[in-house]
């Protein structure tokens, strides 16, 4: 094996040192600002296109509306934080937060299905809801900007678990997207929120887990 003095003459090191340009280091703060801006622009977009539901401020929203959107917010923040951290890898990082937040948010669809079981016309209530697909599709559309920002962030960084990173991007962007569009949706019953505002997160998780890793490998 070569000695240390030989190693110092490694031509690759000379070349890399010669090519060195200053870089701005990645910090959690800059990632958080980027995602917060993406969410803010999304909410503004929802306000322009559909108009936010003024009933929220007027106190007309049901408790379940606030709980459901609160759970989506917590899930979105937990998953987005995990993604932001993944850009600067280190042995010792744990990304368990989103796992517990996902379990917590799973209360939404479970509550919806339990409610459906207790109603004679539960299934028809779920299917006949005229706004179901509108909310589902709009929530996915409202996820695109945040998802793009998270992908760009990770491509600038060095994610070492692309599969997990893809999953967390999918969950974070759709949870925040569903929340953003949810602020324009005045339907605040358990079934609508538990099924049609939670379903985009499941779809986002699947897309993120299976479609995004190829964009994140380096």
């Amino acid at each position: 094996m070569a000695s240390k003095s030989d190693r110092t003459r490694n031509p690759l090191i000379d070349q890399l040192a010669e090519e060195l340009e200053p870089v701005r280091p990645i910090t959690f703060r800059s990632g958080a600002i980027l995602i917060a801006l993406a969410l803010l622009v999304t909410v503004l977009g929802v306000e322009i296109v559909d108009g936010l539901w003024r009933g929220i401020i007027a106190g007309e929203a049901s408790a379940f509306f606030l709980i459901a959107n609160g759970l989506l917010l917590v899930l979105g923040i937990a998953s987005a934080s995990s993604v932001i951290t993944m850009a600067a890898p280190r042995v010792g990082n744990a990304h368990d937060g989103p796992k517990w937040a996902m379990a917590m948010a799973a209360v939404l669809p479970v509550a919806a299905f339990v409610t459906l079981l207790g109603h004679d016309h539960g299934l028809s209530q779920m299917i006949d809801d005229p706004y179901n697909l509108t909310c589902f599709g709009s929530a996915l559309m409202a996820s695109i900007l945040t998802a793009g920002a998270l992908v760009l962030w990770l491509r600038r960084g060095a994610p070492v678990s692309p599969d997990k990173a893809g999953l967390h991007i999918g969950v974070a962007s759709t949870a925040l997207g569903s929340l953003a569009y949810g602020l324009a949706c005045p339907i605040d019953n358990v079934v609508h929120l538990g099924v049609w505002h939670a379903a985009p997160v499941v779809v986002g998780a699947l897309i993120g887990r299976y479609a995004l890793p190829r964009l994140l490998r380096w």
Partner: protein
Amino acid sequence: MIANEQSLVRLMIASQKGDKQSYAVLLTEVQLWLERYFSRRCPPHQIDDLVQEVLLALHKKRGSFDPKRAFLPWLAAIARYRWIDHLRKVYRNSEDALEDFDAPEDSEEETVIARLSLERMFVHIPDKQAEVIEMVKIEGLSIKEAASRSGQSESAVKVNIHRGLKKLSALVEKAE
């Protein structure tokens, strides 16, 4: 003696600002550290290639180092990521055998390296998977030879390698 954590952080911060001299010193220290790091899990003649790959990865992703955090855990994560990539690419080569090669012992960094080590990752995958990955991807045995030595069928060896590498890739940041 490889530079300590604080020195490496200072060198990396200076490098991110464009200080070429600090960067050359840093890369030289990193090279020495990586040679020791990979020595237990790589045949000696493959170490140079792997070290070069990690140096290039470090250069490309140098912006991903957060100056407020430790340097070696960051470097180890990148090294593990590249190592798993390397394992996927390795094909049987009789010259690849590790045989009786042992890493040089060094007292002070042992604790740090042990915590960040590649061996630590094997603890988290089933023994059957770790065993055949070691035989085929590290020692260079053929599937048939690994099946014979491990007592697993050839298809089980292939499946266990595939599943084991998949699990390893999810453990890059695992410390304990």
